[in-house]
């Protein structure tokens, strides 16, 4: 049996090889088959099915049997699904491979170290009782320490002087235990409730978002990171115990808000148009209907002006695609939002929606009363809607800003997952609305 460092090294080596093989094979499949090529084949097959249902004109041979065409089409659908799944798993596999490689390096050092320590150093046996045994950190401890330091560094960078919430709490602590006449004159801090509590929550939220931006992580993870920093004493050493407890409960609340099931989080379910049942097999089944108060907008009944509702052909002009981690418009040009500008805002940001099949549509053109999120899909339910900032095809940030759909946090996660599964990375996910 191998001793632990060697066993760990061997296990990591095996995993790295597995991941490398998977990545290589999937990349080859995507390059050979190509999702777009498969889609095209399916379209042709479906057209053939539609044609075969029509009677052949006199003098022409009958079309191919529909059943056979349907079997072929189903086979293509399965191939497409399998390829999409494999492609979706690629970013996670790459990330895991990077982590495994890091751990491999550390494990290699441990293996080397173990070999060295297995051979007694000259004179080691004579070291006597004065040579006290020293604790050697395990690989897990080393990695945990590294992670803690990295997180502490993000907290220090994002939250200058501890951040706005912590400054507020430190100020309260100073008033409770004044060390100067000026502090004494300000009196004891008032109870943290009502508007005071709401304002404090706003400060915590701003700090969490700053952390999310600096660490390039989702806000719920940032809330968890801030909580950990408070528990470990990186933050909040000087605050009052009850305020520290309050801060932890606010952070818990924020994490819960971000991770609760979508049904519970869709506080506006009752204000939407009736849900439309989706057929089985859609890639992103968490879809929301448009807000009911916007119904009839295409007739001028809402804004006075008529909101454009695109048909299937028109919406193709707005379809955007990810390729090698970059976003392209329908003409094959790198998508860019720098020129986006309207009377009512939207500077540097485009509006987007994603339908339940994962098709994305976007436009720099957002004219109130004329062209909205609902325009792309003619008011149909969407799997995601919001605004994003894209520079030369590189997605910089996404949000769920949409007055037409009021999307849930889970839907923004769907969009983020979709983008990441196609190679986009390092973009900010702004859950604020």
């Amino acid at each position, binding site marked *: 049996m191998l001793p632990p460092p060697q066993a760990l090294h061997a296990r990591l080596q095996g995993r790295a090889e597995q991941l490398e093989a998977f990545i290589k094979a999937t990349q080859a499949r995507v390059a050979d088959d190509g999702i777009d090529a498969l889609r095209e084949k399916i379209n042709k097959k479906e057209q053939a099915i539609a044609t075969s249902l029509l009677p052949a004109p006199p003098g022409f041979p009958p079309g191919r049997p529909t059943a056979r065409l349907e079997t072929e089409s189903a086979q293509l659908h399965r191939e497409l699904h399998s390829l999409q799944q494999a492609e979706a798993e690629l970013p996670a596999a790459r990330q895991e491979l990077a982590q495994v490689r890091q751990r491999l390096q550390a494990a290699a050092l441990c293996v080397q170290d173990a070999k060295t320590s297995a051979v007694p150093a000259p004179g080691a046996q004579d070291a006597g009782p004065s040579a006290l045994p020293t604790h050697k950190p395990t690989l897990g401890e080393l990695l945990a320490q590294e992670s803690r330091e990295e997180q502490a560094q993000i907290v220090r960078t994002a939250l200058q002087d501890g951040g706005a919430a912590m400054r507020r709490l430190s100020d309260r602590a100073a008033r409770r235990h004044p060390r100067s006449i000026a502090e004494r004159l300000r009196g004891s801090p008032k109870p943290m409730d009502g508007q005071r509590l709401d304002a404090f929550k706003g400060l915590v939220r701003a700090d969490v978002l700053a952390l999310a931006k600096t660490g390039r992580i989702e806000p719920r993870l940032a809330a968890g990171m801030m909580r950990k920093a408070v528990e470990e004493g990186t933050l909040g050493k000087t605050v009052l115990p009850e305020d520290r407890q309050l801060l932890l409960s606010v952070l818990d609340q924020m994490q819960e808000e971000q991770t609760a099931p979508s049904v519970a989080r869709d506080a506006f379910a009752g204000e939407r148009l009736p849900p439309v049942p989706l057929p089985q097999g859609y890639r992103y089944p968490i879809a929301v209907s448009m807000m009911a*108060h916007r119904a009839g907008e295409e007739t001028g009944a809402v804004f006075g002006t008529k909101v454009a509702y695109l048909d299937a052909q028109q919406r193709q002009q707005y379809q955007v695609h990810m390729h090698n981690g970059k976003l392209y418009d329908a003409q094959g040009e790198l998508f860019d939002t720098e020129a986006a500008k309207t009377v009512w*805002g939207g500077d540097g940001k485009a509006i987007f929606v994603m339908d339940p099949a994962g098709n994305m549509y976007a436009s720099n053109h957002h004219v109130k009363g004329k062209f909205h999120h609902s325009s792309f899909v003619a008011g149909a339910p969407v799997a995601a809607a919001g605004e994003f900032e894209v520079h030369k095809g590189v997605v910089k940030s996404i949000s769920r800003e949409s007055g037409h759909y*009021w999307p849930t946090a889970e839907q923004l996660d769907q969009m983020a997952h979709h983008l990441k599964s196609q190679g986009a990375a390092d973009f900010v996910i702004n859950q604020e609305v």
Partner: protein
Amino acid sequence: MNALNFLRIPLSMIEHIADPAAFQGLSPQQLALLQRDYTPEEIRGIRAALQFAVEHPQHDFAAMLPGLSHSNERIHRFLVKVASSLQGQPGAANKSLRGA
């Protein structure tokens, strides 16, 4: 069609303004974009709806567009600023609006 529907167009704008209390009206650039994005007839509709808003501060503007996070009073002040920038703006933008 209810002529007041046009009011929802400027009403939608308030959520894009960082500080509605500090808003001083549409900039010349915004006025130019207004002409780019809306027909003269539509601009006339917006102006008429804004005129109604100016004259009826007690109207429930907040109810016209659910989700607005401002008081009715603040929304009214905002609409008055938009209306005055549309009417009082000298130059090409205003001429075009008058001619619309």
